């Protein structure tokens, strides 16, 4: 997977020029060194470091450790008594794609039609979306932004939560293909799960066939295929095992279907939802399939009767790579509290931190850049007043690409206006 800022060759610039009403741009990287000193550092890739130092320069981490030399002239951030972690990585979000869920004018995450593999959400992202600074204030610095609905919803991108343009924010395009197997896809299968599977097989076979016989296709020497050429072409990286497939599946049998499909077509599979994943944990571990878990889900539905709060814990214990990716009416800013709840329900604290940092980065193949505090990675670092999973703690500094982001949002503006009543409008 590329971790560059490719935009797939589309006319991005034209679209962007109109979108820059609010620019919260990340300042150009400078040679200035930032030294975060004295804190308890949780690199995630290794054990915690008491009284550790994290050095940032040119948007990268250049050093992590105890007792490392701090260059003269460095900007110092005293983190004594604080906790220092990588920025949190939301593994399944709609940041920038959805402003207000009930307002169509602000929704960009879904294309009409059942099968939209060529739909790439990147150019629908609004860098000025109000959800972004709000999520950032909770320590979230990186996210997979995904399309929604439909049997094949389309392709997500990895963004970091800073930047005034799509080009500036989108770090990895074609990061994952999002598909659905359960109840949300049934209509696309003629009303049956079996129909959904049959349709996937037909599409995948046609995509393979199209790749193999492009010349024949161009000369109309092939029978009709089950999707337009552009859609089939978009499936090629998926069928080559290069681009991950995130399959939304909750029922045990749906997860097993996804595993079967992945075996047949050599897919690089992730499961999202996975309400009953704990019941197939050994098979998921053996196949090396990560699971994006909504770990606050325990209400039974026919798509997942065996819902339980310790799903993520049981998966982690079985050796499955778990990503905590809660979606809720906080507009997904409460990710750190979801991680705290995973600990409440039996996961180790270290596992939970990993599940919102390094594990999503690894599962999406972008861990060269994000997920841990290691030299060479993007300087996305959070200084917390205490345990990041506790309600009593807050993010005091959020660095993205080395920039100490302002902790301001539309919410803080409203608070400032109405803290004392009546408000002053002038």
């Amino acid at each position: 997977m590329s971790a560059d800022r490719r935009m797939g060759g589309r006319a991005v610039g034209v679209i962007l020029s109109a979108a820059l009403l609010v620019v919260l741009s990340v300042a150009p990287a400078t040679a200035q060194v930032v030294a975060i000193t004295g804190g308890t550092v949780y690199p995630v890739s290794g054990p915690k470091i008491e009284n550790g130092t994290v050095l940032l320069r040119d948007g990268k981490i250049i050093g992590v450790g105890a007792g490392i030399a701090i260059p003269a002239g460095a900007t110092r951030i005293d983190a004594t008594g604080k906790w220092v972690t990588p920025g949190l990585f939301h593994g399944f979000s709609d940041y920038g794609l959805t402003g207000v869920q009930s307002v169509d004018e602000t929704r960009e995450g879904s294309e009409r039609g059942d099968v939209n593999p060529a739909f790439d959400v990147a150019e629908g992202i609004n860098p000025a979306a109000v959800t972004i600074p709000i999520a950032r204030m909770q320590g979230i610095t990186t996210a997979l932004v995904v399309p929604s609905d439909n049997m094949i919803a389309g392709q997500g991108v990895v963004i970091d939560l800073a930047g005034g343009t799509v080009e500036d924010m989108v770090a990895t395009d074609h990061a994952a293909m999002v598909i659905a197997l359960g109840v949300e896809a049934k209509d696309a299968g003629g009303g049956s799960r079996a129909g959904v599977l049959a349709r996937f097989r037909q599409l995948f076979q046609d995509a393979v066939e199209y790749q193999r016989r492009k010349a024949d296709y161009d000369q109309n020497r092939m029978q009709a295929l089950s999707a337009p050429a552009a859609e089939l072409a978009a499936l090629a990286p998926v069928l080559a095992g290069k681009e991950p497939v995130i399959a939304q599946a909750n029922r045990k049998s749906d997860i097993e279907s996804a595993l079967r499909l992945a075996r047949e077509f050599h897919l690089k599979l992730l499961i999202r939802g996975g309400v009953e994943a704990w019941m197939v944990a050994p098979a998921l571990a053996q196949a090396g399939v990560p699971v994006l878990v909504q770990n606050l889900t325990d209400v039974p539905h026919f798509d997942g009767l065996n819902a339980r709060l310790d799903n993520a814990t049981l998966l982690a214990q079985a050796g499955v790579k778990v990503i905590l990716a809660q979606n809720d009416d906080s507009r997904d800013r409460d990710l750190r509290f979801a991680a705290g709840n995973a600990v409440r329900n039996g996961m180790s604290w270290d596992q939970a931190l990993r599940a919102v940092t390094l594990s999503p980065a690894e599962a999406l193949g972008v861990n060269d850049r994000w997920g841990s505090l290691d030299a060479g990675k993007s300087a996305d670092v959070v200084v917390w007043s205490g345990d990041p999973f506790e309600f009593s703690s807050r993010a005091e500094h959020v660095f993205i690409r080395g920039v100490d982001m302002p902790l301001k949002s539309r919410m803080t503006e409203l608070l400032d206006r109405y803290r004392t009543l009546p408000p002053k409008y002038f």
Partner: protein
Amino acid sequence: MAILAGCAGHAGPSSPTPKSGPDGADAQWSALRPQYPSTYQRHPNAPVFIRNATVMTAVGPEIAGASILFRDGKVVAVGKDLVAPADATVIDGTGKFVTPGIIDDHSHLGVYAAPGTWAESDGNEATNPVTPNVWAEQSFWPQDPQIPLAIAGGVTVIEALPGSANLIGGRSATLRLIPARTVQAMKFPDAPYGLKMACGENPKRVYQNRGPSTRMGNMAGDRAAFIEAEQYRARWDKWLKDRVGDPPARDLGLETLAEVLRGNIQVQNHCYRADEMAQMIDLSKEFGFKIRSFHHVVEGYKIADLLAKNGIAASVWADWWGFKMEAYDGIPENAALLTTAGVRTVIHSDSEDGIQRLNQAAAEALYAGQQAGIPITRLDAIRWITANPAWVLRIEQQTGTLEAGKDADVVLWSGDPFSVYSKADKVWNDGWLVFDRNDPSHQYQTDFNLGQAAPGVGQ
């Protein structure tokens, strides 16, 4: 004319003392008979003594190293120097916390039950924008598998409400969360009914093709309903006083609205926007009824002074915002700002998920306030989910705090309930141990899960 205070037994027009007994003249009129009464009966239990815990009474400062004794469904004593009676079950509370049972004043458990198919969708009678004739309890399914999950979160009492599709959505029910076969067996004895009303986007969206389709249409619909109810109430009150001839024709919806006008039923009003709450306050003054609490109140912090002045509670979320336009201005300091302005504030769930973690929601709002420099205390925060919702449900004399004589609705937490890591270890509802995290014989499944959910699920 003497007006009966409680409504659990009498659904109809508040009558003076019946002129004759149940077999007498009044008994021929359905409106004057007891209706759908609670059949709740306290479960017999041995007394319980929890020792050496931190007790959060919700009336005063937390007491470290304290004990609590409850017997026959009542709190007997709370304090530092208590001695366990010989017949009590003694529980070591070292390192643990004790709070009153959590009360959720905004729940759709039972009326929007799991597994969430069309068949269980019984929360909105969305066939008419004005349906004061419907009662949430008559939709409530006691076998909703969401109930034991909420109990495991320390919830002992809920207000089950109709949804917010309608301007006037129907009567609410105050229920004990206990295993039961009928809703009558869960009804909190003598708890008054509430009336669900809704402002804003939901009614005007649901009825956009037939009206109301605007906020002014919403208000007009409310006013028309209460104008009719005024007349109805006058007819009935005159007949109840004079007893001349047959009573007026009975109308189920107007009967409920007349009870609202009499003050026996108070309004639970779904309302997000500040300006709309001000409209609803004026509407309540036009007709002389009482709004007990606004619910959701996402913009409550903008008019905290107005709510305080009118003595209306605010039932809010800790962290929901932005899912629709009228929720766009939600801020995490809402509960804290309302509280310091003198508004009786409640953290509610409106969610089968959120109800399981109301202690966490209170913690989130507590610390959001403190981090913004708003002087909110732990006592304020525990009252958001106990004493204050008890007031909203008008059962504050019976429950919501840990004081001698109050109902033994008690939760023993594994640690500080405002830590993300703490769990409810034991939950007593009116003295009955309805949940014990470490004892499967005190965990139950509703019928739905039996035989189709794996062991460990739903517990």
